[in-house]
């Protein structure tokens, strides 16, 4: 009897943006296997051209609603790098705090709302309101905390307001920081309870050796500073990012992919963990140990657990940063900017991986050229290579199971397809 498998997942759900999975196999032979990205292109590089730097940092976060703070930070850094501005110590502390909110919010959303339904065998978080109400309430509480923290520091989580080139247009009140610090301390307990719960979940077993790329800073677990690190080749300065990303076109898809030392590389929480795990806090290290996460981990499904470990790390980090801010005292600083002609690059770790904004300005601070390289774009190739390694191992399983494992694999990368769509093809089958 001929065994035929036809999987065509049109618009994978519970990911940010639009992507399709195509698998056709006959008698154990794979005929077609593709990860397709079908998001409408948005043309940000064209939209940014001709705008002044202070508009640029407002338009750029609109690349992505989920990681708008990452885009905002990368955008501000690129402007400052171009204009030769060195941010003050207070600005850096506030940015780090804001970034903790970004990472916590995104990881909580992804872990509880987008991933957990798979692990618990349901289609969305909504039925969990009935069956796992305490877990859902905990997730909502954590998300609200991260959103509130961002609100305090920058006026709003989605599309931030107060963070600008040169600093902050408004600074938070000490009493607000104090109040939220207490909630962050409570959140650590929620997160550690989540680790307990997660120990019993079964993560699919699959490994493919690959290269992991993330920022690395000698001072701390890097999110918004440092050089580019690879588990294969060591560190490279951010200024040379194009030597890492090497975008290329592939014949079977018109989407641009990236590669460095091997066929593909991966970015995101797991890549950061694999490069920088030694710099995690003791509680985050313990969580990793409890969850069976050990560097260098080559199972892409474990990215979800790396996110949970990072959620603990950034919560502790935020508590510490607030202590530092309160100890030194906050004051409104001058944010006057003197633009100059030149090029600047910003590099940050978006929740789902390393992100670059590269701008060229004229002497009035009007943007001449922009290039944004998005983490999900860097992961598309890795998803495709994982598919190619995974499918032969599971081809004898029922079609539904194959489909779910492929969908879960895509989701484990936490892809942010709207972000990546600035250079992805759309092709409907």
């Amino acid at each position: 009897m001929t065994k035929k498998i036809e999987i065509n997942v049109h618009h994978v759900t519970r990911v940010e943006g639009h992507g399709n999975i195509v698998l056709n196999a006959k008698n154990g032979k794979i005929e077609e296997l593709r990860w397709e990205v079908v998001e409408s292109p948005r043309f940000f590089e064209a939209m940014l051209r001709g705008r002044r730097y202070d508009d640029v940092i407002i338009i750029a976060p609109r690349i992505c609603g989920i990681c708008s703070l990452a885009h905002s930070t990368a955008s501000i850094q690129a402007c400052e790098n171009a204009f030769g501005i060195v941010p003050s110590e207070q600005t850096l502390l506030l940015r780090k705090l804001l970034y903790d909110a970004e990472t916590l919010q995104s990881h909580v959303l992804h872990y509880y709302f987008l991933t957990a339904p798979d692990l618990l065998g349901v289609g969305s978080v909504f039925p969990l309101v009935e069956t796992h109400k305490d877990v859902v309430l905990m997730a909502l509480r954590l998300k609200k905390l991260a959103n509130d923290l961002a609100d305090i520091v920058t006026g709003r989580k989605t599309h931030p307001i107060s963070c600008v080139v040169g600093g902050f247009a408004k600074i938070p009140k000490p009493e607000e920081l104090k109040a939220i610090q207490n909630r962050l301390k409570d959140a650590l307990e929620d997160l550690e309870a989540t680790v307990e719960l997660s120990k019993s979940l079964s993560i699919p077993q699959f490994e493919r050796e690959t290269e992991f790329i993330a920022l690395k800073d000698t001072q701390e677990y890097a999110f918004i500073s440092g050089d580019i690190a690879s588990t294969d080749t060591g560190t490279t300065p951010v200024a040379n990012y194009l030597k890492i990303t090497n975008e290329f076109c592939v014949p079977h898809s018109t989407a641009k992919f990236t590669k460095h030392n091997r066929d593909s590389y991966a970015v995101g929480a797991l890549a950061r963990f694999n490069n920088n795990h030694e710099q995690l806090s003791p509680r985050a290290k313990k969580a990793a140990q409890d969850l069976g996460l050990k560097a260098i981990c080559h199972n892409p499904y474990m990215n979800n657990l790396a996110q949970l470990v990072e959620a603990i790390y950034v919560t502790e980090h935020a508590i510490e940063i607030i202590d530092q801010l309160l100890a030194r005292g906050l004051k409104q600083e001058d944010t006057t900017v003197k633009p100059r002609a030149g090029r600047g690059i910003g590099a940050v770790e978006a929740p789902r991986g390393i992100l670059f904004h590269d701008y060229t300005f004229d002497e009035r601070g009007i943007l001449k050229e922009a290039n944004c390289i998005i983490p999900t774009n860097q992961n598309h190739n890795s998803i495709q290579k994982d598919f190619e390694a995974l499918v032969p191992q599971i081809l004898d399983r029922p079609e539904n199971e194959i489909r779910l494992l492929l969908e879960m694999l895509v989701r484990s990368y936490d892809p942010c397809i709207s972000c990546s769509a600035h250079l992805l093809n759309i092709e409907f089958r």
Partner: protein
Amino acid sequence: MKPKLAFFDFTGCEGCQLEAINFEQELLDIINAAEIVNFREAMTEKSDDYDIAFIDGAITTERDVARIKEIRGRAKILVAIGACATIGGINCLKNFYSMEEVKRIVYGDCAHYYDTIPARPVDAVVPVDYYVYGCPMTRSEFLKVVKALLMGTRPEIPNCPVCVECKMAGNICVFERGMTCVGPVTRAGCNAICVTAGQICWGCRGLVDDPNADSEKEILAKHNLTPDEIIAKFRMFLGYSEVAK
């Protein structure tokens, strides 16, 4: 029977869908009062049977045009949420280039692969029943509209300029701080959140019904903006409207 709600995303950042998930406790209340049957960012199940469709994102491809017409055909009530869907938003920044130029800037040699049309709000293609403005959509307004629709009443959306709320928030006027903004012609409802956070109003909630755009342009000119800078100001979010032409 609970009304069936569906969420559909077009060309945008999906931040408005995220804002809907961000409701925390209120989200649970909505789930109690209505059935969510379509929400790709948050759930796997999909259904073509729905009463109220929430649309985020702008219309930027021929494919988008066909899809929004199909959704309009099925929905009893259609609500546009967020700047992209209600006014076109920043997507319209590309409309001031030829589409060939836009594709070449971003995709270079691969430009011919891409399908794109000038960006437009949803109501440029199909009738829209209700609007939730803002970039991202103003959350309190979304709740107000959802509550009204579930109770069968009409939501009241402000039609005064942001300046009214900005004064009430106790802010020092942006113009007095040596900067400029389009708050005087922009629809209120956001409590002037951006000015309160130390910034300016960019007009993300769209124009009030009868904007005095000429006098806004005069004021901007008086504050030393060149004609190009004035038009750039209007094009940021309001590129689809006449004032930005």
